C-alpha cells in the first residue's frame, strides 16, 4: 500500500550512496548512528507506519548496527584499491534469447489479489492531483 510522500524533510547530506567511501555514514548531527528523525524519514519512504515507541526502539537498534559496521572505517586502506564488487568478474551477460515465462496462473497466485488477469493493488495516492 502506498501512501502520499509527505513534504521532504530538510535536505539530508549523509545518506549513503554510491561514490562515497563505503563507510557507514554518521548521522546528520555528526554523531554516529541514526537519529529518530532519520528512522521516521526512512519509514515514510518504506511506507511503514511506526509508533513513537517503535521509532525510538529501531533508532537504537539501527544505530547499534551502524556502529558495528562503522568499525570497518578504522581499517587502514590507504594502499588498497577501491573494491567495487565482491566477485572479481566483469561483463557477465546472456545472449538476447527469449526463454519461457511463468504461466500466468502461477504468477497471479503470488498476488495478494488479482482482477482481469492483473495484480490488483489498493488505490494509489500522491501521484496526481
Amino acid at each position: 500500500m502506498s501512501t502520499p510522500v509527505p513534504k521532504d524533510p530538510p535536505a539530508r547530506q549523509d545518506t549513503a550512496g554510491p561514490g562515497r567511501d563505503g563507510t557507514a555514514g554518521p548521522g546528520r548531527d555528526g554523531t554516529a548512528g541514526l537519529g529518530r528523525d532519520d528512522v521516521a524519514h526512512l519509514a515514510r519512504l518504506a511506507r511503514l507506519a511506526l509508533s513513537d515507541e517503535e521509532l525510538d526502539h529501531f533508532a537504537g537498534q539501527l544505530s547499534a548496527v551502524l556502529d558495528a559496521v562503522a568499525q570497518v572505517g578504522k581499517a587502514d586502506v590507504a594502499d588498497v584499491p577501491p573494491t567495487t564488487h565482491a566477485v572479481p568478474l566483469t561483463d557477465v551477460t546472456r545472449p538476447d534469447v527469449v526463454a519461457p515465462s511463468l504461466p500466468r496462473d502461477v504468477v497471479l497466485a503470488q498476488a495478494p489479489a488479482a482482477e482481469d488477469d492483473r495484480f490488483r493493488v489498493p488505490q494509489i495516492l500522491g501521484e496526481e492531483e
Partner: protein
Amino acid sequence: MTASTHTGERLVDFGEVLTRYEPVIGLETHVELGTASKMFCGCATTFGAEPNTQTCPVCLGLPGSLPVSNAAAIEATIRIGLALGCRIAPWSRFARKNYFYPDIPKGYQTSQYDEPLCTAGHLDVEVDGETYRVEIERVHLEEDTGKNLHVGGATGRIHGASHSLVDYNRAGIPLVEIVTRPIPGTGARAPEVARAYVTELRDILLALGVSEVRMEQGNLRCDVNTSLAPIGSLEWGLRTETKNVNSLRSVERAVRYEMRRQAAVLDAGGRVVQETRHFHEDTGTTSPGRSKEEATDYRYFPEPDLVPVAPDAPWVERLAAELPELPAARRARLREEWGLSATEMAWIVNAGAVDLVADTVAAGATPADARKWWLGELARRANDAGVELAQLPVTPRQVAELTGLVAAGTVNDQLARQALDGVLAGEGDPAQVVEARGLAVMGESDELVAAVEAAIAGAPDVVAKVRGGKVAALGALVGQVMKATRGKADAPTVRRMLEERVL
C-alpha cells in the same frame, strides 16, 4: 497580455514572454530497446501480449532470483552513446534506485547512477536554418516499469480511482535514458528546438536499429524541463519537469505552455515551484504532479547481483567503426545527390519526406519528380486527410511507377492525379488503375480522329480564321477535342492532327 485556461491558469502571450524572459530547456528521453528478451531475464518483450504472460521470478523480483544482463542491450546502449559522440566508460555499474510504487515489483529499479555507460556527448539540431548544439550529459541503461490501469475513476485517470490493476509484462524491458545538459540560448525557438532534438534523436535510434521508436506505443517517452529567467539575469530560473510527453507535437506544446505559464507566475511577482508536472494531451496544458523525492531519498547503492560492465576499447572501437550512416550525414549526402539547395532539402525534412523521397528515387523516379509529387499533390492529400505523409495508402514504389507513366507519355499530369485517386482508394498499382479506369492518353485512334474531325466540322468560322493566317485560333479547336475526350487526349498530338487537316 494574459489569457486564462479553463482551469484558471494565467498565461502570457508567447511572443510577449520573450520580451522579458529567456528560456532554458532540458530533456530526459526514455527509449525502450527493441531487444527480443528483457534486460535481466529471458522473458519476451512483445508489445500487446496478454497481461502478465511475459514475467518470471527475475522480473517479478521473487526471492532467490538472479538477474543477468542482456548483452544486446549493453551493446545497443554503447552504440547510442557513440552515435551521440559520447565518451564510453571503461568501467560502469548498475545501481538500485529504491522506491515503493506498484509498478516496480522489486521495490527498486535497476538503473545506473554515478557510473553510466556513456557521458559527455552532443547532438546538433537544425531549426529554420540555424544549428543548435544540444549537449548530452549522459546515456544510461535501466529497466522499464510495469503498467498501471486505474479502475473506478474517470477515463482511466488515477484521480478518483478506487484501485489499480498492474500488468508486469513491461517491467524489466531494457530502457535507455538519454539526458541533455540544460540548453540555453534558444529564445523563441525553444519549443521547436525541443521538438527538433527529439525528432533527430528518434531518427538516430531508427538508423541504429536499436528500437522501433513508436511513440504511440510508449517506446520513446520524454520528460521536458523548462525554466525562465529575466533577460539579462545571470542565474537560471527554477525549472519544472513535465512528464508524460509522448508525441513530437506534445514536446513542442509542453515547452510553449510552460513558458507562458511560468511567465505569468513571474509577472505576478510569484516564484515558480520546482516540481513535476503532468502534460495533458487533450488540452495541451500541464498540471502539478507528485512532489519529487530527492535523489538521496532513492537510497541508490551499487547492485550487488550484477557485476560491473567494462567495455574493452577494441570492441568499442569496432562498434564505432560499424555505426551506420547517421541521419545528418545521410541528409547531406542525399541533398548533394539530388542537387537541392539547403532550403529545398529543409522542406523535405520538415515534411517528414526524406525516406519517402529517397525510396521513390530508389524505385526509379527522378529526384525532381519524387520531390514534386511528395511535396505537392501527396502533401495536399495528406493535409486534407489530416494524416502524416507516410500514412497515406500509397508506397514510394507506386509513386515512382506513376512518375514513370507520366514520363513515358502514357498519362499526363491531370490523368496521373486521377490515377493517384484510384491508388489511394485501394484500386491497385498506378498502371492497373490507368488500365481499369481507361486513363491512358489516347493515341491516334479512330476515336481521336473522329473527335478531331467533329471539331473541325463544328467550327467552320474558326477553321476560316486559321486558314486566313490566325494560326493561334487553332487553340480553340484543341480545347474542343480535349473536352470531347475528357482530357485523355495528348494535347500536342491533337494540335498536330488538327494542323494536318486544317492547314
